[in-house]
């Protein structure tokens, strides 16, 4: 079973990205679509010219250059590729290095799995970029990475070029281990309260500041030409925190309650760094002014609530209320399925809090791009930006919208018609593999039989219920919300 799945994944890998097969490779022309630019309105019967993976022109009166591959999008809608600011797809194994309270030495970028089928599934939901985060088991968690969903490419090709790396912080119930009992015989890990969570973060930054000072002194003396200097001892736990202090690494802080959000803003002020985004931030609406003043973004859920105590005051108006007070807000998934419907989730902020359609779209495009510092390259349909696009059969803010194509860097990475057309071949390949496996098993059995005479007969009295054969593997929810 496992082997077969692996082969299926390989088949996809060979297919993607889908080449357009034009004489003028690298030049693609999407024509006659409703173009939702996000930054400068919607263009009816609009076209997008793509050259070498970048948007070269957008408008209503463009002409296709000779030899360009044409994507006819008559009656369809093109929007910027969706950016998911909180994802755990494409991670090999657990997302949590849950041992120490500060696991900043662990890096998600080291364990990217390009064969995770959820990359393809989310791509089929219009997602082109995702912020791949460490889990929320620690006040200071592991390092994070922004990727493009370049399905079929190796892990080294996934990271979003030039995007600043991040680090996951986590406040509240998860880092203080409220909802999972400590196994018997295991000493509970500090911290066990929100008080302790703050202390862990402050202590870590006191050490990081000290460590930074040692290095700064060393580098300064070295620069003056001093000889025979011994460099400070490298500390891989503190290195990323120094990057935070230097503004070279973004802090993405998992948070729920208003008090803990204010706590981290205070701690960040004390040490002179900025929180780039508060993730989940379900009580962000209670202190939207304070978040806005701190310069942090808010990346939240649409309508999740009551799954734990700190989510009991969560309201679906959160995105709209924070946006109204000037917070840059995105709506994220934290879940491979939710990512496939982020267009639907964004639409809910029109119902809850009255955002305009364009502001609703921003929640999953331009705003997460700003939060991740990639808005010069992604998040809207503007000349010069990467051609990361999602094409829907109708207005993507409708529950009835279906993704037809997803492009990254101007290449079609998902094509619904092609996916459907390829299913028969996939089923055929699966059957062939199953047959081969069955044949091999039978041959092996026959061989064993000829070697020794059968001693036992199968008990025919007990008739078991139906059985498809093969063990069933259960998926384990790698929850981190």
């Amino acid at each position, binding site marked *: 079973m496992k082997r077969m*799945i692996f082969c299926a994944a390989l088949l996809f890998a060979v297919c993607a990205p889908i080449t357009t097969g034009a004489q003028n490779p690298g030049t693609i022309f999407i024509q006659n679509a409703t173009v939702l630019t996000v930054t400068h309105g919607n263009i009816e019967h609009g076209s997008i010219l793509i050259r070498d993976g970048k948007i070269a022109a957008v408008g209503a009166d463009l002409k296709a250059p000779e030899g360009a591959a044409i994507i006819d999008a008559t009656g369809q809608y093109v929007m910027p590729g969706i950016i998911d600011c909180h994802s755990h797809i494409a991670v090999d194994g657990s997302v949590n290095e849950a041992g120490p309270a500060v696991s900043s030495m662990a890096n998600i970028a080291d364990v990217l799995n390009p064969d995770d089928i959820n990359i393809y599934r989310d791509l089929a939901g219009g997602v082109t970029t995702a912020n791949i985060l460490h889990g929320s088991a620690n006040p200071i968690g592991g390092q994070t990475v922004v990727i493009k969903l370049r399905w079929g490419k190796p892990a080294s090709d996934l990271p979003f070029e030039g995007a600043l790396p991040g680090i996951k912080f986590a406040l509240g119930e998860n880092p203080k281990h409220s909802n999972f009992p400590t196994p018997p015989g295991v000493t509970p890990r500090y911290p066990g309260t929100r008080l302790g969570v703050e202390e862990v973060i402050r202590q870590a930054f006191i050490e990081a500041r000290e460590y930074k000072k040692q290095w700064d002194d060393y580098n300064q003396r070295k620069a003056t030409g001093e000889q025979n200097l011994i460099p400070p001892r490298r500390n891989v736990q503190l290195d990323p925190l120094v990057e935070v202090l230097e503004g070279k690494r973004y802090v993405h802080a998992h948070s729920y309650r208003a008090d803990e959000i204010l706590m981290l803003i205070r701690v960040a002020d004390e040490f002179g760094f900025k929180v780039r985004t508060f993730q989940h931030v379900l009580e962000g609406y209670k202190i939207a002014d304070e978040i806005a003043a701190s310069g942090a973004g808010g990346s939240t859920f649409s309508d999740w609530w009551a799954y*734990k105590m700190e989510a009991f005051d969560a309201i679906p108006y959160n995105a709209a209320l924070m946006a109204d007070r000037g917070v840059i807000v995105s709506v994220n998934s934290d879940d491979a399925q939710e990512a496939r419907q982020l267009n639907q989730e964004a639409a809910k902020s029109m119902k809850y809090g009255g955002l305009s359609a364009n502001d609703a779209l921003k929640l999953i495009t331009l705003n997460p791009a700003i939060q991740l510092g990639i808005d010069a390259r992604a998040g809207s349909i503007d000349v010069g930006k990467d051609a990361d696009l999602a094409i829907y059969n109708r207005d993507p803010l409708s529950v009835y919208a*279906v993704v037809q194509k997803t492009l990254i860097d101007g290449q079609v990475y998902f094509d619904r018609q092609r996916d459907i057309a390829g299913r028969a071949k996939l089923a055929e390949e699966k059957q062939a593999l199953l047959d081969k496996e069955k044949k091999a098993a039978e041959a092996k059995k026959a061989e064993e039989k000829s070697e020794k005479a059968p001693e036992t007969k199968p008990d025919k009295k007990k008739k078991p219920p139906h059985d498809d054969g093969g063990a069933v593997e259960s998926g384990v929810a790698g929850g981190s919300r």
Partner: protein
Amino acid sequence: MKILHFSSRAVALILAASLAIPAWTQTATTTSYAIKGGKVFTLAGPAIENGTVLIRDGKIAAVGAGVAIPADAQVIDATGLEVYPGMFDPITQIGLNEVSAVSATLDLSELGDYNPELVAATAVNPASAHIPVTRANGITEVIAAPGATGFDLQSGGLIAGQASAFNLAGWTMDEMRINRSVAMVINWPTIQTRSFDFASFSIKEKPYADVRKEYDKSVNALGDWMDRARHYAQAQEKGSPALYERDLKLEALVPVVRGKLPVLVIADEARDIRNAVDFCTKQNLRMILGSGAEAWKVKELLKDKKIPVVLAPTNRLPEQEDTPYDKPYTEPSELFAAGIPIAFSSFGTAFSRRLPQYAGTAVAYGLPHDEALKAVMLNAAQIFGLADQLGTLEPGKLANIIVTNGDPLELQTQVRYLFIKGQLTSTDNKHRELYEQYRKRPQPAR
């Protein structure tokens, strides 16, 4: 932009004020309402333009284009709006689950594997914050099913207890109850070689032969329970109470083995569904399939045995790595096309309000829109034997009605008026209250 928002909100506020719906109460003096001027979707015939729905004493008294409005009826002007039966979420944990991670707020999963005597209605909390939140999105009645969490998260034993149907408004369960027992919940066993062990926080692997043995043992045990219940029923019929010992568990199973109470079997994998159908056929039980993530693989069997399916949320991941990416989205339309009765369901609490979204997604992938409406309003009532009271706008039925400003399956649609048991019911809830409270928070001093 900010001004725009404010003005749209102001309009919404003025609208809300003009409705003048008192905080919800079942002691309202009005017993008669006339909803007039809207487009009425009865689900029992073609839509009626400019129709009137007359409500009296909690029930629908008349529906039509030329219905005379009695003098004592409070008139609700639905001009430009649409009128539908309320939505019905048939497998939920509403009232049994307040905060999922806080066990003190849960009454979902009793200890032990066989609990047929337990009834959800016993512990449904009428003051749950989920009730007003859910009904504000147009869901007027639900079934709470103990232990039936569906899609791979089963708990609460193999026979988890009896599911109860109730309206999402009322001071007590006595006032809310539609039917205390609508189905016996059976969590069909699964064969899982790998499972997550919370005690050690790691994945435990067991040999296939071992889990297979456990599986067969569970299925046999379920059979034993049904056999014993049948003997108990015979003793009840033919003997006198003095001759047998009263057994609450067997007593609860008697309506099941007599075919009076359906079994709601929660199963996802094709193999498990086949085995469950096999079991129910042999035991002569009325089966409703719940969840059924791979029901699309056994369409012919379900059609042949006339087994309805309460669908797992449409918005979910495919079962296997090589399952088509859109299979959960197309499954409802495939089952419908095969002639299998379907109903959408949330299988949850906080996401019960997503019910129309699940139906809408299925429409995007091929389910006819009018069938999707039935699958959130009418079909569950039929599947659970409540269609004489619910599911359509027809005289004599319970007046559970929603008045919307558009397509109830679309994400931006608002429920403007809500009637439960014929009472105009407020759509206020915890979320809107917090919204109003914090929307007005003054800028903090800097």
